[in-house]
């Protein structure tokens, strides 16, 4: 698998939000690797975010799952109970996707994002907010 990723701009925090997405293809495996793909800071610098992807890491084209492990940047304590929102976006093309990702907190401070349908090659941002859009993190992937 090619090691082609990334650029990142960062941010971080927490919670869980489920948005159903009708018609989405089967989501990727929830078996995330132990090693993170990216480590980002939230825009405010108050949170640290580890990013993992499945079924492949780095991700390839198709339905991707992403796990965010969010901790306090100072104390390292997990940031649980956050209400996350996420939008996949292709900045070079100026569009997102028709499928709304599903976000579930699977353990304290660990959030699984399903149904990120990165349907074409190029740079994709996963623009992620929490705390009423005050905090942001934007994992960015080059999808072949």
């Amino acid at each position, binding site marked *: 698998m090619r090691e082609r990723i990334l650029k990142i701009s960062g941010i971080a925090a927490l919670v869980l939000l489920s948005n159903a997405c009708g018609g989405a293809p089967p989501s990727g495996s929830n078996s995330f690797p132990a090693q993170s793909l990216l480590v980002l800071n939230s825009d405010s610098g108050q949170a640290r975010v580890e990013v993992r992807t499945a*079924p492949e890491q780095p991700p390839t084209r198709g339905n991707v799952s992403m796990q965010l492990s969010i901790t306090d940047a100072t104390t390292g304590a997990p940031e649980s109970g956050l209400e996350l929102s996420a939008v996949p976006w292709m900045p070079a093309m100026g569009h997102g996707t028709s499928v709304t*990702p599903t976000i579930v907190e699977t353990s304290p401070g660990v959030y699984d994002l399903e149904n990120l*349908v990165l349907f*074409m*090659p190029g740079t994709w941002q996963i623009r992620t907010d929490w705390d009423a859009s005050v905090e942001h993190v934007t994992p960015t992937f080059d999808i072949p």
Partner: protein
Amino acid sequence: MSMSLRHSTFLERFAVFAFVLGLQRHASAQACCAGAGTVTPGRLALHEAALVGLQLKAAGELGSFDAQARYASPPPGASELDLEQDLFGAVRVLDRAQVALLVPLVETRRTSQGLSEFGGGLGDINLNLRYDFTLAGASLVVPGIAALAGVTFPTGKPPDAPDLRPLATDATGIGAYQANFGVAFEQAFGPWLVNATGIVAARSARTVTSSGITVHERLASQWTALGSLGYVLSSGAAVALSASYAVEGDPTINGEKTPDSGHRLTTVTASGLLPLSDAWRLQSSLFLNPPLSHLGLNQPALGGLLFTVVYAWT
């Protein structure tokens, strides 16, 4: 294919297409009618009052260029096939001014991770104006010079429309208005015709809100340079080689530039034109985004075929 790319190739294809049509006019009427390559899909000769045409396109994905301009083949099981049928017409509104309209139907087939999806629909309608200040071959010194202007309307569905299929195969537009301006130079040297065209395209900003997140994006202007060389055979048929290079800067999202998000694309095209009569002509083209690193950025690379039939009234 990305909608942005569709519009990029739109411009280039039309420019090449118009150039090859210009070759045919050059063959039939020599310097009196030839003009520059243009964004207009159909290009009228001076003796023509109107034309209609149908262009069929099929293109397959070869791979893609990443944000560092590195080329990579698609991952196993991933593919894309783009089909398009463009109905177009042009009408003369002044002695040297013509207006053209293009209505595209767009279909896409994508496969990924064992999934396969096919969809399509009406694309973004394009309206163009062309004005020829001077004509190729009319002077040994002054080439044919034409001004081009056009607008593309967001009549297609953007890829983030909520009612689309997951792989967005029924996305057919970019969701924004696009304005095009250009200038074309063309000169005849016996049976040879040379063309240089420059086009700039600007798109309106888009605002998309999903899951409570608002993305307000303005794409940078896109600049395209096109060069073509054509040769007219004694039979009246013509062949041409063209190359274009399109560049677009980084977009602005929520008021901030997004670094490493611009794109570039190189396209080479070989075309042939066969006049069947004074009214009917056929054209075919092979086009390719060369799958070589540094010839593209943040873009898929495609290869494809175009077939066009035109009927003109004098």
